[in-house]
């Protein structure tokens, strides 16, 4: 959020940091720092009216004020001049000595240059120096003060560290200043400042010190920059310095006392010098603090920064620059706005030097360690408190606003930002509106609350299918039924339709039309014969079968024919080419389904690619960190969620144990298991083949039986009619149960167990449909011995008066078969729900305590894979049947709609949570994958039929052939022939090899390209992960060294 707020107004001179994130972080951080300073200034009571001032003014006035204060300090300085100069003398003398060494000469000259070579008028520089010196002035005494009690026992390093906690600060009034000091001590213990100043330390003649000298110390340029940078830091921290002054003046008398001893200690031990110098450069406190924590495991990364963030986040947003470890870099780049560009350049390049030296330090300097975490925390807490008391919302907002307004922002940027914002708002609002309109969202929430998201995906899938069927319905009905039913001076039946010659259309030859007329007459007569004597009972039965009176309705293919309308506004008459419309509608329906499927599965693919290779890797994290749904708002749902999560986690753990068990299997066990698996698979295969044959047999026997029992009761006839459908439905109910039992012997992992059961069931379902199609194909397309092949139907008429019934319009016949299946598919689960599931629950509720059998049977579990398969099956039927029976999409739409409520009712009332819930993120893609398979399977017969089979001449929109051996696709061909010749050529190219070979080649090329790209990305991800791991290892290694060193020091 903070980042967002800042996006608009990044100061241009801060842009040199790496990338946008860096810039934003820098900026946010700058703001937070500003407010941090403000707080301190307020606390000191030095500055009263900052509200309206710009930052620069604040800086300046801050500096001026400090300069004034320096005047006050003069006396104190003079007073302690001697002692202080002692240190200074030392310092100078090292410098002199260092001049001799070529290595450090560069450094010193640069040091001097840093101070002297600046143009006089450079206010910034002056100020820098002021700060540096002022820091030194008042820090030095504080250091000495610290040393007073410590000087007694200055012999061990650890003693010094302990001293930090000693009550030596008791004489200071301000507890805050003590905190400052203590943090600073910690900083000084860190390796930070010492490294920078190591050349000076060389005077102590410690060989160890020399080692610390960073290799780049020859680089005077880098050093100079470093010093410059340091002076900026002094800038940034003047608030601290300021604060520290307070107590320094108070304690000046005590310091005088302690001075000598301090000096002694100073000379005796180089360690002390560290602290001295660290005070000297106390301007680093913030930065070094952060570095310290970063170097040592990052425990307290947040602590120092936290206060800034707190202040900042509550006002503008939360800036987590401290969390991503960029802060050290950012801090270095931050600087007062009025410093020249030269500074910024050197600043950034000094970064390199510093980071180099820091990396050195990391590995070498282990003398001091961050052992004061608790104290740091306390300090942070108190600082925070102080900050909170001091801050004033209006003031901050004002400052931020001023800052933001002052920034030069380009017009295009503003415009872009506004556009983006407006677009986002628009998107969100439409989303909100759509969300309100969303169908069943309340039901979803209810189900989700009780059964978790995995069951909810089933219902979501159902809704998706509902919409799919809706689109299919619109396409099919809109293109076929509606034009057919519209009554504008139309012929009432095909027999009445005008002769094509009269219409002026370019139909060739009347013979095809005559033929169609004759065939139709024959067919209608045949139908009338069947339906004449029907009573209401048999009419009702016909309704179930799609035969009799229903056969000649708009429900089925057979009724449609080309219509001619006289339109009121257009001269003459217009023929509606029903055949073309029919084909295009079918094509459009399949295309719509295809695109929706692809779109939906793309989502699944995206997420599955995301966690590919690590799909199992993050399952626990996913459950634990993403487990709780923050939307849950009622007590019951929350309880359910707890239970659900426990169950899931426990299930996963069991799963894992199972995995371990599998790994520990002995060879003997393995052999036994594999043999069992082979046997089970054979049995499964047997079942599959057996049931498929049964379907085939039932279908083939159907018509014979129909003939045989032609004169028995119509209900029996109906039952016979339903035989193939009942067979399929029964097999679909029984066989999956057997599969489910069988798979338990195979001892697979639960997830795999579910998948393989699903796979087998899918095979059964789709294969049974295919077998049905196959047997139908055999019946209507193949030549038969006993039948006359006429009017596009192979079973047009019986020859030898056999028992088999003729088929006068095979498309309608196929449509009837599918219609029956759909009716059954609708009725059976409905009946099962109310006859089996509901009573089962009642029985269980009443008797499960009394009868063991009932208890063993248990409650109905919601069987997700089976439920999904039912849906997929219905959809497959829909695709297969929509050509023969354009009404089918509407039927499946209604089915989906009713079933949603039935299923919801049974899930919420009759079922219990599945013991092993599906993985939510995977289940949807699995459903879609299954649906996709079924889509392709149903596409196959369709294209085959349209491309090769001749339509009936007795019925349907294609009954008037245009050529001998007419096929469905000829309609399209005829259409193209009516186009202008150029367009004809264009379409012709699509059918030639010249188009297909390059097209396939190009597709292959793109596929290959994307495959290679994907492999590359995967490899890169792997490398990055390895990097991450190595980084962690590095950290651990360093920590181990640190610990070793610590042990060594401790002795």
């Amino acid at each position, binding site marked *: 959020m903070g980042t967002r707020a800042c996006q608009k107004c990044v100061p241009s001179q801060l842009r040199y940091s790496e990338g946008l994130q860096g810039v934003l972080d820098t900026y946010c951080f700058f703001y937070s720092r500003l407010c941090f300073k403000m707080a301190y200034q307020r606390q000191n009571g030095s500055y009263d009216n900052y509200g309206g001032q710009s930052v620069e003014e604040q800086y300046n006035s801050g500096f001026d004020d400090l300069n004034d204060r320096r005047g006050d300090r003069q006396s104190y300085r003079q007073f302690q001049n001697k002692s202080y100069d002692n240190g200074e003398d030392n310092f100078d003398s090292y410098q002199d000595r260092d001049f001799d060494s070529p290595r450090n000469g560069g450094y010193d000259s640069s040091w001097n240059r840093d101070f002297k070579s600046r143009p006089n008028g450079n206010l910034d520089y002056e100020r820098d120096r002021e700060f540096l010196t002022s820091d030194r002035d008042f820090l030095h005494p504080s250091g000495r003060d610290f040393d007073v009690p410590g000087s007694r026992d200055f012999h061990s390093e650890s003693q010094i560290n302990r001293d930090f906690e000693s009550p030596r600060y008791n004489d200071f009034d301000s507890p805050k200043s003590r905190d400052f000091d203590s943090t600073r001590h910690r900083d000084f213990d860190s390796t930070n400042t010492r490294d920078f100043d190591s050349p000076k330390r060389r005077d102590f003649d410690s060989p160890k010190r020399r080692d610390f000298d960073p290799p780049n110390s020859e680089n005077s340029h880098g050093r100079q920059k470093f010093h410059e940078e340091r002076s900026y830091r002094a800038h940034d921290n003047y608030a601290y310095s300021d604060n520290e002054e307070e107590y320094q003046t108070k304690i000046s008398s005590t310091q005088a006392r302690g001075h000598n001893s301090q000096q002694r200690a100073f000379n005796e031990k180089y360690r002390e010098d560290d602290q001295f110098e660290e005070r000297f450069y106390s301007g680093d406190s913030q930065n070094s603090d952060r570095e310290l924590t970063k170097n040592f495991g990052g425990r307290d990364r947040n602590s120092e920064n936290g206060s800034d963030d707190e202040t900042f*986040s509550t006002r503008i947003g939360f800036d987590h620059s401290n969390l991503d470890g960029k802060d050290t870099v950012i801090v270095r780049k931050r600087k007062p706005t009025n410093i020249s560009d030269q500074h910024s350049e050197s600043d950034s390049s000094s970064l390199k030097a510093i980071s180099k030296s820091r990396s050195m330090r990391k590995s070498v300097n282990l003398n001091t360690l961050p052992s004061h975490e608790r104290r740091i925390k306390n300090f942070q807490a108190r600082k925070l408190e102080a900050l909170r008391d001091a801050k004033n919302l209006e003031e901050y907002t004002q400052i931020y606003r001023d800052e933001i307004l002052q920034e030069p922002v380009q017009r295009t940027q503003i415009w872009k930002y506004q556009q983006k914002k407006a677009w986002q*708002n628009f998107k969100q609002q439409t989303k909100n509106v759509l969300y309100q309109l969303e169908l069943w969202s309340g039901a979803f929430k209810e189900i989700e609350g009780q059964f978790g998201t995995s069951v909810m995906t089933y219902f979501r899938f159902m809704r998706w299918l509902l919409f799919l069927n809706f689109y299919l319905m619109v396409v099919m009905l809109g293109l076929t039924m509606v034009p057919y039913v519209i009554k504008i001076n139309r012929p009432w039946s095909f027999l009445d339709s005008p002769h094509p010659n009269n219409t002026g259309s370019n139909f060739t030859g009347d013979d095809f039309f005559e033929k169609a007329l004759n065939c139709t007459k024959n067919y209608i007569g045949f139908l009338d014969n069947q339906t004449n004597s029907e009573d209401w009972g048999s009419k009702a039965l016909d309704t179930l079968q799609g035969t009799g009176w229903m056969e000649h309705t708009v429900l089925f293919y057979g009724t449609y024919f080309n219509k001619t309308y006289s339109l009121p506004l257009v001269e003459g008459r217009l023929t509606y080419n029903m055949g073309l419309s029919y084909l295009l509608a079918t094509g459009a329906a399949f295309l719509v389904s295809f695109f929706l499927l692809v779109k939906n599965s793309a989502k699944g693919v995206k997420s599955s690619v995301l966690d590919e290779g690590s799909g199992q890797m993050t399952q626990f994290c*996913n459950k634990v960190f993403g*487990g709780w749904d923050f939307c849950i708002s009622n007590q019951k749902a929350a309880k359910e969620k707890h239970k659900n999560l426990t169950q899931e986690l*426990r299930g996963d753990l069991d799963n894992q144990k199972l995995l371990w068990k599998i790994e520990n299997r002995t060879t003997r066990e393995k052999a036994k298991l594999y043999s069992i698996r082979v046997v089970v698979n054979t049995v499964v295969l047997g079942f599959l083949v057996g049931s498929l044959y049964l379907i085939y047999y039932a279908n083939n026997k159907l018509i014979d039986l129909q003939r045989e029992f032609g004169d028995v009761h119509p209900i029996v006839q109906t039952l016979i009619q339903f035989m193939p459908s009942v067979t399929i439905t029964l097999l679909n109910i029984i066989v999956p149960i057997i599969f489910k039992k069988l798979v338990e012997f195979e001892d697979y992992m639960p997830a795999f167990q579910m998948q393989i059961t699903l796979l087998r069931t899918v095979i059964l379902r789709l294969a049974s449909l295919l077998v049905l199609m196959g047997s139908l194909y055999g019946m209507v397309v193949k030549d038969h011995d006993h039948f006359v092949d006429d009017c596009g139907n192979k079973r047009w008429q019986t020859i030898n008066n056999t028992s088999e019934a003729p088929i006068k319009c095979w498309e309608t016949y196929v449509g009837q078969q599918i219609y029956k299946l759909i009716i059954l598919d609708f009725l059976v689960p409905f009946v099962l729900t109310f006859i089996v599931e509901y009573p089962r629950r009642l029985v269980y509720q009443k008797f499960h305590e009394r009868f063991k059998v009932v208890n063993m049977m248990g409650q109905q579990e919601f069987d997700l894979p089976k439920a999904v398969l039912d849906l997929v099956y219905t959809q497959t039927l829909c695709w297969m049947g929509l050509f023969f029976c354009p009404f089918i999409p509407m039927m499946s739409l209604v089915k989906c709609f009713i079933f949603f409520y039935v299923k919801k009712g049974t899930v919420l009332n009759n079922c219990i949570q599945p013991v092993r819930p599906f993985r939510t993120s995977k289940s949807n893609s699995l459903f879609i994958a299954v649906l996709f398979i079924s889509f392709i399977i149903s596409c196959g017969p369709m294209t085959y039929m349209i491309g090769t089979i001749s339509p009936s001449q007795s019925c349907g929109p294609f009954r008037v052939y245009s050529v001998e051996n007419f096929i469905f696709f000829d309609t399209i061909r005829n259409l193209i022939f009516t186009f202008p010749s150029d367009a004809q050529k264009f379409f012709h190219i699509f059918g030639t090899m010249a188009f297909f070979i390059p097209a396939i080649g190009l597709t292959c090329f793109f596929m290959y390209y994307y495959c290679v790209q994907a492999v590359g990305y995967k490899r890169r991800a792997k490398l990055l992960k390895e990097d*991450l791991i190595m980084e962690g290892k590095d950290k651990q290694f360093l920590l181990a060294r640190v610990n070793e060193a610590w042990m060594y020091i401790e002795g």
Partner: protein
Amino acid sequence: MGGSQSVFSEQELSDYQELTYFTKKEILHVFKRFQTLDPDSVERDKNAKLNRETILKLPELQVNPFNDRITTVFSSAGDGCMTFEDFLDMMSVFSDNAPKNVKVEYAFRIYDFDEDDVISGKDLREVINRLTGEQALNDEEMEQLIQNILEEADLDDDDSLSFAEFEHVISKAPDFINSFRIRL
């Protein structure tokens, strides 16, 4: 809406809009929800500081196992008390429009119970305990679970998750973004 319209000046509203992921209308809606928590004191002062108990009257927070952490993290004072701005901040982070990285940051802070900037085994135990309801898993299961999580996410083997590690593992946890939100 008219009543609360006057509560904020246009300037304030547009500021809030800039700083959150909400539209002005939604900000007013958030304010309404804030108001329902304690109508009296908010009536008196729109920037009233409501204490933790009052904030937890929000139904989503009431049943949330991490509610105390949420209030602490979003409270500017760190003590669980929230002003309207804190509240707005919170709702903004939990809104659908907040990007994932923002959510991840706050989630990290919420799950970091001892506030030591790493999610240690202890934090994980606490998270799991709260997720499953107190003591639903036995010790052995708990240990195994924590071990599994660390195995998945702890890349540098220091037995705790740093923010980077957390972010990394969340980027692969598809359910997080869907679950870490509160509808207005």
